[in-house]
């Protein structure tokens, strides 16, 4: 590690570590062992819930009620039973509809707003940003009652997922905020160059900014997708009266209720709800991590 900023050091740089090399390397080995055993121990704790879920999901329903941890008969048919015993496919379809439409509408409406907040200077910009952060931090329960009354009494859309999907066409504060954080990092020169070439703002956004912002857009899209996929409160408020509109997250709860003695089926269903999330994660690991990083402010 060549230090470039050591004007005060009279000893040549490599000499300093040489003095400490021997004691340090033993200490480093010890440290390596300590850190890695700690990591392995913690990792086990993080993985074990998944393992127990999987094992239980393969037991017979009788055995799932015992304290046994290991299946005596591996019953893979549980996973088939889940689909037979419930509206699983309907819930799956509804979740997908909510998540896909919600994500597309969110991106479509949030990208121009984020661009304007990151790139235009105007009076009230700080106020606008503050409102974005305030709505981002707003518990959804604060405004749910008037919202429900409007959707149910004026538009008669209760029993559907539309009251959850339509609002996403009006920008989502969290997505706007994340996209803005990313767009701030694009060097101004690119935008100036586009302008010199005679691009209007819309063309600049579409041709210059969007291609550069692809990783952030993917990250925000994934987050919105999982927000919808995982949402329980929204479907509970709007869709609970109509089983045909239940989502996976909501249906899973009723599945548990209906099969309260069948922990094996419940655990199989639970894993089936988790599976798409985990699969998508392995395809888009980088985007996820970048997305979360964008949330944190730069230190």
């Amino acid at each position, binding site marked *: 590690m060549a230090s470039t900023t050591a004007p005060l050091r009279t000893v040549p740089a490599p000499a300093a570590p040489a003095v400490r090399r021997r004691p340090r390397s033993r200490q480093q080995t010890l440290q390596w062992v300590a850190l890695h055993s700690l990591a392995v121990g913690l990792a086990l704790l993080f993985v074990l819930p998944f393992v127990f879920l999987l094992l239980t999901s393969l037991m017979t329903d009788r055995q799932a009620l015992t304290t046994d941890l290991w299946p005596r008969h591996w019953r893979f048919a549980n996973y088939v039973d889940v689909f037979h015993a419930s509206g699983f496919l309907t819930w799956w379809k509804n979740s997908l509809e909510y998540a896909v439409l919600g994500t597309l509408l969110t991106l479509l409406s949030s990208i121009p707003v984020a661009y304007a907040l990151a790139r235009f200077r105007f009076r009230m910009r700080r106020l606008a940003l503050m409102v974005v952060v305030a709505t981002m931090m707003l518990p959804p329960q604060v405004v749910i009652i008037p919202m429900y009354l409007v959707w149910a009494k004026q538009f008669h859309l209760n029993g559907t997922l539309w009251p959850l999907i339509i609002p996403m066409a009006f920008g989502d504060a969290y997505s706007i905020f994340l996209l803005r954080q990313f767009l701030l990092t694009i060097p101004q020169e690119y935008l100036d160059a586009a302008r010199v070439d005679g691009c209007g703002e819309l063309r600049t956004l579409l041709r210059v900014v969007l291609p550069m912002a692809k990783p952030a857009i993917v990250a925000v899209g994934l987050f919105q997708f999982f927000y919808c996929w995982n949402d329980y409160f929204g479907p509970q408020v709007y869709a609970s009266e109509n089983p045909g509109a239940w989502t996976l997250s909501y249906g899973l709860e009723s599945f548990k209720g209906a099969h309260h003695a069948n922990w094996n089926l419940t655990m199989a269903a639970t894993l089936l709800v988790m599976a798409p999330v985990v699969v998508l*994660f392995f395809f888009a690991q980088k985007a996820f991590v970048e997305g979360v*990083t964008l949330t944190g402010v730069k230190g």
Partner: protein
Amino acid sequence: MATLDLSAAVSPGLRRRRRKQRLTILAFLSPWLLGTGLLFLYPLASTVYFSFEHYDQINPPTWVGLRNWSYVFTEYAGFWPAMRNTLWLVVVMVSLRVVFGLGIGLLVTNLKTGSKLFRTVFYLPFLAPPVAATIAFAFLLNPGNGAVNTLLGHLHLGQPGWFTDEHWAKPGLTALALWGIGDLMVIFMAALLDVSREQYEAASLDGAHALQRFRYVTLPTIRPIILFAVVTGIVQTMQYYTQAIIAGKVASGVVDSPGTSFEPGYPHGSTLTLPQLVYSLGFQHFDTGSACVVALVLFALAMAFTALLMRRGSGLLGEED
């Protein structure tokens, strides 16, 4: 960026350009401006209005002044327990999550071997859908045949009643929240990688040991991120809903279809939180006015902490804004 210079007398051409620029800005912002009005300001104002009305969602509303407010604060049995639970969760869950998240972040950034694998392992539970994760935890932690208590039994340790004992319900939820630490780990990792190596080396040369290096080099650098994690954690915890209601439902063994007769808070109100109170008052008891009072208390609390995040210099909005 075309900055607007308002001081000089302007030519008509420039003025036209400026008007065009202003229209462009408005066009770009329009979806969000509409959304803020329709989905934020309007329902917020309605919530305030409804908090002064008696409304059962069938008969026309009647004005009752401050009656809902005094009912919620002095008579309604659920309010103060929900406040106390929320406070408990904010203090214990948020502080443990920040400390644990920072600890895991430190651990993973210092691993020489397999750090990618460990990162994935620590991150994955964060992605588990809350309903699925909570049902899983309620099963694994259930006192009768759950894997956790079975293992504790083999080790001759105590076997708490987790989600069935009012003293263990919130610790059970906290364990679930710590399992889903992945988001904080990633945020802290990014911050820790930003700490300059030169400062560490300089501190080492001055003879600082690991703890001192953490105290005097790492901590000051990542302080904004810690503030961010604490404040967002507090606001998230105030919204705490899904896990608490599902844990209560699963542990109490309600078998009816969801959303109907389950009174949140099982056992003994120990998992009742403010958002569940809004749901229960508004959609189970059709007491719109009282539900709106609770919603506004929630709003005031969340915004008080959000204001902390928005202060100039907290780094969230950037210094020049």
